[in-house]
Structures are given as structure tokens and as C-alpha cells.
């Protein structure tokens, strides 16, 4: 226990709690508040996904199944509450979603976790396809195209909390997000979490020291399903509607992107990914129609140049920071940033031109083409040099860093 709750960690978690409390005062618009709520939901979802991919080494293409099923059952539960069939405060509805996710991942996990790697990925894909297809066919439970509509103000008003205003929903999500984050972090520090890492890295050895890898994968998958269900339930409460899209392949693919962009190597990586991806999807899409393309390109760039995700970029700089060598990196970073920005503007210019050229046509098309082309070629040329320089400095630094440990 002492390892989980040391002083530094307490300060850190306290800071997170304070941040959650404070955010709505800084971003108070209706849209910002909705987006913050969505981020909270996605943080839970992405973290639960990372229990599979990052910690247990199970690449799943069907994690949204548990999110979606949790959400649908919660929606029906809220409607039962509204009809007076049974009473459970809305604040505890995420437990319903969580239990649903747990139940389904227990069942499906039992048959799918026997093998890691590609067979698991393919099974999860197959199951996701089947669930998504049945969600469209069985309209009684999934509500057809319109989905299931609920009313989050169904429960009794407790302490003035009706869940009418979005701010109350935000704080509900914040509390559940905080609790789930804490629990999931705690799991990584338990013997179970450690053994899951061992199963990921070398199942034979884990088996050799007396743990059944299949059992460990099964437990981890069930727990991941539990937290995904919580996220799904919160989504139901937040949006008051749930449709078949929520458990589709796109949603499953999205969480893979989130976890990977943020970085699966660190516990907090997927959180960064969830926040960034939500921000990109909601904000970038207001600026440009091509946001999906930028999004895909960002993903490819990250896999190519920093497969550990954004969190890894941060972590590798910590030793440099401790060694006090950041100053030596700065000039080359600045150079790379400048040339990178020039190239980027050129690329954005071309993409936007192509999109808009087809849709509207413009006057200065030729001019923009030339300028963008120039920016890409010149920027790109110097960017390559900048990257070489950065690499060189890193190589120079490495013996020094090794000394610092």
C-alpha cells in the first residue's frame, strides 16, 4: 500500500482532482463543457483499453462492444427508473454499465483469451462485426436507427442534484473518471498487474513460475470490460441517447488510435491520447473538412517516428532534463520546429486546396499551389537536415545520460 500512496503520488493525484474541479470555471461555454465531459468519458475508455493492449499485450479491435453494451443496458435501466420499476440514483448508474461490461467480457473473454497476438485480434474483430451487425437487426433492444433515448433527470433530486444542467453531469463524470483512474492505476501496482506484464512479455515464463496466462488474460479482459462499461454508462447519462454506432467498428478503431497516439507504454499515455483525439475530432472538424486526413497522418507520423506515442516523447526527455542537457537540444529542436512548421503549412495548403478546389474553386489557386510547393520542398529539405542534427545530438548525449542512469 505504501508503494501506491507515497507522498509524491498523493500530491500528483491531488493536483489532478483540483484540475478536474477547476476546469469548468476556465472553460465554461456549453460546447466546452460538453467537450470536457466527453474527454472524461474517453479517458476512462482509453485507460480501460490500455489494460488490454499496454499491460497484457492483447490487441483488441472490439473494445467498443463492452462500452456499447454497458451503455445500452444503462439506458434501459434509466428508463426503468423513470417508469418506477426500480430505484437506483443516477449517480450510481455507471455501476450498472460496469457490471454489464464485466458480465459480457467474462463470457466472451472466456473463449477468446486463450491465445494472444493475431488470433486474439482477429477474434475480437469477428466478435465486433457480429455484435455490430446484430445491433442493427435486433431493434427491440437496440432501438433501431433512433437508438434508445433516456432522461437523465429520471431519478429523484438528491441534494439539489437533478442532472438537468450539464455542469452537474460534468462533475459526475469527473468523479467517476477520478475513481476509475485511481482504481486502474492501483491495479497496475498489484501482483495481478505485474503478472499481466509478465504474461505480455513472456507467457512461457509466467506459466513456468506458476501462473496460468489464459487466466490472467481473462481476468484483465474482464476488468477492462468493467471500466469500458462504466465509460459507456457515463456516455448514456451525458448524451441521453445511445445508438448502434457506439459499439461499431469505428468506435473500436477510435480507442485504438487514442491509446496509441497517447502511448501505451505509460499508464497516463492513453489519457493524453483521449484528450488530444477528442479535441482534434471536435475542434479541428470545425476548421476543416479534411480533419480525418490530418488525423490519419498524425497517427502514421507517430507510429513511424515515436511508436511509444506522445507520452514516450515526454519520458525520454526526463533523463535529459535531470542531466541538465536540455539546453544543448534546444537549438536543433528550434530549427526542426521552424522547418517542420514551414513544411506543415505547405502540406496543409495543398490538402486544403485540393478539398476546396473541388468544392468551390478559387482565384489564387495557381499562386497557392506554387507557394505551398515551395514551402514543402524547401521546408522538407531543411527538415531532413534538422532531424539528422537532432539525432546526432542525441547520440552525443547518450553516454552522458547513461552515466546519469
Amino acid at each position, binding site marked *: 500500500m505504501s508503494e501506491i500512496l507515497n507522498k509524491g503520488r498523493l500530491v500528483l493525484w491531488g493536483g489532478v482532482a483540483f484540475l478536474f474541479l477547476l476546469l469548468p470555471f476556465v472553460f465554461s461555454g456549453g460546447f466546452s463543457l460538453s467537450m470536457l465531459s466527453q474527454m472524461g468519458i474517453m479517458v476512462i475508455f482509453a485507460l480501460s483499453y490500455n489494460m488490454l*493492449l499496454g499491460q497484457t499485450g492483447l490487441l483488441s479491435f472490439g473494445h467498443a462492444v463492452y462500452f456499447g453494451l454497458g451503455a445500452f443496458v444503462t439506458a434501459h435501466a434509466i428508463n426503468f427508473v423513470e417508469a418506477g420499476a426500480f430505484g437506483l440514483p443516477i449517480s450510481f448508474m455507471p455501476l450498472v454499465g460496469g457490471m454489464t461490461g464485466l458480465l459480457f467480457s467474462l463470457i466472451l473473454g472466456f473463449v477468446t483469451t486463450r491465445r494472444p497476438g493475431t488470433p486474439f485480434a482477429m477474434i475480437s474483430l469477428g466478435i465486433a462485426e*457480429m455484435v455490430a451487425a446484430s445491433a442493427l437487426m435486433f431493434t427491440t433492444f437496440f432501438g433501431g436507427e433512433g437508438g434508445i433515448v433516456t432522461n437523465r433527470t429520471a431519478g429523484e433530486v438528491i441534494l439539489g442534484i437533478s442532472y438537468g444542467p450539464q455542469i452537474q453531469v460534468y462533475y459526475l463524470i469527473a468523479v467517476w473518471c477520478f475513481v476509475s483512474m485511481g482504481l486502474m492505476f492501483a491495479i497496475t501496482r498489484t501482483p495481478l498487474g505485474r503478472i499481466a506484464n509478465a504474461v505480455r512479455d513472456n507467457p512461457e515464463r509466467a506459466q513456468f513460475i506458476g501462473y496460468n496466462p489464459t487466466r490472467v488474460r481473462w481476468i484483465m479482459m474482464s476488468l477492462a470490460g468493467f471500466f469500458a462499461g462504466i465509460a459507456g454508462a457515463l456516455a448514456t447519462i451525458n448524451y441521453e441517447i445511445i445508438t448502434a454506432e457506439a459499439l461499431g467498428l469505428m468506435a473500436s478503431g477510435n480507442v*485504438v488510435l487514442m491509446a496509441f497516439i497517447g502511448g501505451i507504454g505509460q499508464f497516463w499515455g492513453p489519457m493524453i491520447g483521449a484528450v488530444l483525439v477528442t479535441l482534434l475530432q471536435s475542434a479541428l472538424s470545425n476548421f476543416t473538412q479534411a480533419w480525418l*486526413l490530418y488525423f490519419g497522418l498524425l497517427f*502514421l507520423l507517430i507510429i513511424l517516428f515515436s*511508436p511509444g506515442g506522445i507520452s514516450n516523447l515526454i519520458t525520454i526527455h526526463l533523463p535529459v532534463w535531470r542531466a541538465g542537457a536540455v539546453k544543448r537540444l534546444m537549438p536543433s529542436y528550434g530549427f526542426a520546429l521552424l522547418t517542420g512548421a514551414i513544411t506543415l503549412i505547405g502540406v496543409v495548403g495543398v490538402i486544403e486546396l485540393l478539398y476546396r478546389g473541388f468544392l468551390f474553386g478559387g482565384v489564387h489557386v495557381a499562386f497557392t499551389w506554387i507557394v505551398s510547393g515551395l514551402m514543402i520542398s524547401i521546408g522538407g529539405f531543411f527538415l531532413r537536415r534538422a532531424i539528422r542534427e537532432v539525432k546526432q545530438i542525441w547520440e552525443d548525449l547518450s553516454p552522458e545520460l547513461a552515466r546519469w542512469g
Partner: protein
Amino acid sequence: MEFFFITLLNSLSYGLLLFMLSSGLTLIFSMMGVLNFAHASFYMLGAYFAYQTGLVFGFWPALFLAPILVGVVGALTERYGLRKVHKFGHVAELLFTFGLAYVIEEVVHLIWGRAPVDYRIPESLNFTLFTLFNTQYPAYRAFMMLVSVGMLISLFLVLTKTRIGMIVQASLTHPDMVQALGHNVPRVFMLVFAGGCALAGLAGVLGGNLFITEPGMAFAVGSIVFVVVVLGGMGSLVGAFIASLLIGAIQTFSVALDLSFLDLTAALGVVIDPDSKWYGGLSITISQTAPVLPYLLMVLMLIVRPRGLMGTRES
């Protein structure tokens, strides 16, 4: 009888198209261990390239040009993408192709727009080959079957009878040994990847005008090709061939089966009221579930026999 023969022909032609699509994927998978998520995107590129080159040169040159172009794109992908990611492991490679599928779809939006393009069957093949009972059988379908059988044979010959085929086969199982013998294994990898993509491109050239050329066409076949590869056995061309025909047959013949649980319960003497809450779920017929059956088959196969029909290893 008429229905049976026509459906048999249809299932054969659909199965052969599936085989064209999945043979490349199998080759790539067995060699590099990468399940290429973007494979269906290369299929789509094949259709679009054929449309574009067809506008300039006509269909017949496009039939050869488009797969070559797709192969070039594939080679570039391998050289500047996958090879870099390779050192980070299979998950990173898989996710790279996953991201690539996103990007290719958006680029297609960007260049050709979101509406379907008018890629047509060439006039020279747009006639009725024969009339069976009184259903017409289009010549283009026969042509497509001919091409895919031709492709199967030549692929088989190249892999077993030529020097390069031998090297490819050897690199499949013993890459280090092949490298030690002085062959450039990375280049063989690139070649195989490009070749696999070109095969998908060829399928696109033939499928694009028989069906429809639109940005959603990759997503529509994206996961079914995985089913074929997994079912047939990872890395087995023969397995992929059998699995393709099998899935073609399942999907086409199950359409004809209008049986549902209602019939089952009726046979047992229980009649369910159409107003019952369960009626909707129970009235689902086998034909309705036709497209889901392959996935069910795949999941069952992975659970029972993870190496697939003809595969020799699990992953």
C-alpha cells in the same frame, strides 16, 4: 434447378474474386507476419487507378497498368513505412497499416470525391455469354473467373518453378539462412509486399466495374478478406483458395434459405404470436444472417483450430 445452377456460378465467381483479394494478403502475411489492414484499400486503389488510366488508355491497358501502379504504391509503403516500423514489433506494423487505411480512404475522397465514379464494364465484354434456362450470364463475370484462375495458376508456377519463387518460399521459413546465402531479404520482402498489393489491385480493376467504385468499397470488404485468410490458415495459398470458395458458397447459398427460429418452433408445435416481443428476434432468417456467418465461422475456427484449415502455424 435454374436457381441452383445460377447461384452455383455466382458463388464461384464471388469466391474467385475473394481469392484474388485474399491471396495477396496471405502472401504478405505468411512472409512478413503482418496482417495488412490496408489490403482492402489497395483493392480500392486498383479500381480507381483503373478508372483513371482507363479514361486515357482504355480498359485493356488499364487492366495491366493499374495493378502495376498499385504495386508501386505498395512497394513505397513497404520501403518507407513498414520497414521503419518493423523494429517496433508486429503490433506497430499492424497499426501502421490500420492508419494507412484511414489515410488512403481520405486521399481517395480528396482526389475523386465522395460520390461513386463512373467506372464501367468495357463494351467489348458487355454482352451475354450464354442463357441458362432463361437467366442471362454476363460475359464479364466469366472473364473475371478466367483471370483469377489464370492468376492462381501463374502464381503457383512462379512460386514453385522459378528461382525467385524459390527464394521467396525459402525466405518465408528461413529468412536468416536466405540472407546468409547472399540474397537481399529486405528486397524480397518489398517485392512480396508490392506483389500482394498488385494482386489486390487486380481484384479492384475487375471488381470495381462489376460492382461499384466508391470510397466505401474498401470498408465493405475490409474484414471479409481477414476471414478468408484466417479460415484458410495463415500463410496457406491453397487454404485461402478453399476458404474463398467456401465463403463465396456460404454467402450466396444462405441467401436462399428463408428458414428462421419461427419455423423451428412451428415444427415443434409452438406458434409465436407476431405481436410478441420476441417475434422480431425469432423471425430472423438464415438469409438475413448470411453476411455474419463468415465471422461466426472465423471465431469458431480460431477457438477450435487456430491455425485454420490448411495452416501450419498459429501466427
